[in-house]
């Protein structure tokens, strides 16, 4: 009830937005060279006035919600060498009132993330590269992109179990049968680095992203 310490003006328009940017960057895995940002619905009209545009950029540059440089985030993009563009879209009734889509690029590499700001700095990531998911980045989270081979889920959950790692939530999403699947696993405790390396080395695994909890 006293806290968090954050940059104003609002926990949903600044704090939550910084976190969406930061998580998007973590999913991308490095500093993007360019970012195209779309603000939807309620965010679409007020993002400038609330400074949500600076907040999302700050997150994409890796800043925390209480970083005093958030206000100058546009200047900071030059140091980091990131280009950006903003767009506002209204009446996207299928989306939450406070939704943001971020497309990050570096060379050929591209990742798109859709997030919502739920108030009080809380967020949900609802889509990664078109795959539906739903996680809050408040616990340790693993995102695995893999070829959809038989028994892969059981295999992965076994590895977690042998690390004494309790699964809090898990979503699986496929694009077409036997094609590519995305698994998002929220865990109560962390995974050993060696298990993470092992997962990455499997020939049917395309990519593993491991997120530590992102502080509000």
């Amino acid at each position, binding site marked *: *009830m006293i806290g968090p310490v954050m940059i104003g003006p*609002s926990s949903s328009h600044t704090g939550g937005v910084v976190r969406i940017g930061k998580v998007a960057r973590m999913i991308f895995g490095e500093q993007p060279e360019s970012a195209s940002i779309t603000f939807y619905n309620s965010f679409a009209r007020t993002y400038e006035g609330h400074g949500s545009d600076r907040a999302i950029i700050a997150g994409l540059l890796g800043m925390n919600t209480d970083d005093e440089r958030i206000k100058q985030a546009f200047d900071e993009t030059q140091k980091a060498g990131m280009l950006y563009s903003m767009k506002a879209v209204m*009446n996207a009734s299928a989306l939450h009132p406070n939704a943001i889509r971020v497309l990050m690029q570096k060379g050929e590499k591209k990742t798109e993330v859709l997030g919502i700001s739920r108030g009080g700095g809380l967020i949900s990531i609802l889509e990664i590269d078109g795959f539906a998911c739903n996680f809050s980045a408040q616990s340790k989270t693993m995102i695995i992109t893999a070829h959809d081979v038989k028994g892969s889920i059981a295999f992965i959950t076994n590895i977690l179990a042998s690390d004494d790692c309790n699964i809090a939530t898990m979503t699986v999403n496929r694009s077409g049968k036997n094609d590519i699947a995305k698994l998002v696993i929220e865990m109560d405790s962390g995974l050993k680095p060696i298990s993470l390396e092992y997962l990455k080395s499997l020939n049917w695994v395309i990519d593993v992203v491991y997120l530590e909890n992102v502080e509000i």
Partner: protein
Amino acid sequence: MSILFNSFSEWKNHIETHNVPVWQPVLEYEIEQKGRTENEIWLKLDQAYAVMKDAVKTGLEKDMTSISGMINNGAKKVRDCKVSVLGENFQKLLYYTLAAKELNSCMGRIVAAPTAGASGIMPGVLTTLSEIHPDIPKQKILEGMLVSAGIALIIEKRASISGAVGGCQAETGTAAAMGAGAIVYCLGGDLGQIFESVAITIMNMLGLICDPVAGLVEVPCVKRNASASVIAFASAQIALAGDSAVIPVDEVIDAMGEVGASMETQYKETALGGIANTPTAREIEKNVLVQVVEEVEEGEV
């Protein structure tokens, strides 16, 4: 087991049966519910208090012009005003509160207490209190902040602390009640007096709608923070004198919940009613809201 902060009467019973300080159950609640150690909690409170004091200072030193331009260094104007309507301390309370809240509107570093929209009130109240009463030790102020947190916990459970849910009474009203409780505690008031100050504060702020111009937390929010701080001190003074709100605090909070629940949505942060719906506010909107927006067909994203 700590109490769960469902009511003030539960809090009172606990204190009376266990004979512990008022803030003790809040500390236990934080330890049990948030899994923090006692040390971490005191440290967090200390940091929060430091950020509050910094916010007041920064708001008076740096340029406080918001992106929209609606906020423009009001705190400094009050500080430099030669006409003092009610004495120096009163003036100080106003410009300290305005300074912290303006910093929030200008993307500065603040503590949500209980929300970012009401983030000027606790800093304004606590810094003024500690300056007027330099004999209050810092530890006592931190304990007072725990008392404030307990107050907000109960209001959150029985009514709301968010403008979008319960109107501005829920947001600045809760912050003022937190402030009043902390003042009474720090000045040696007992549990009954703390609770009376909360009841009086909420009674005074009952019915206040949430109607921010252009949806930005600036107008009327900044000035409302200032007057909420004044109400906090007024209620604390009355309660410390032993006067009563007559209606018990739990019932007052329930009344606030009832008013909040029946408040129409145009008065709940939607910028559709009240001050936000005045012709001038509508003009301002044209300048500060993003104008280049695409409209999409139903359902499509």
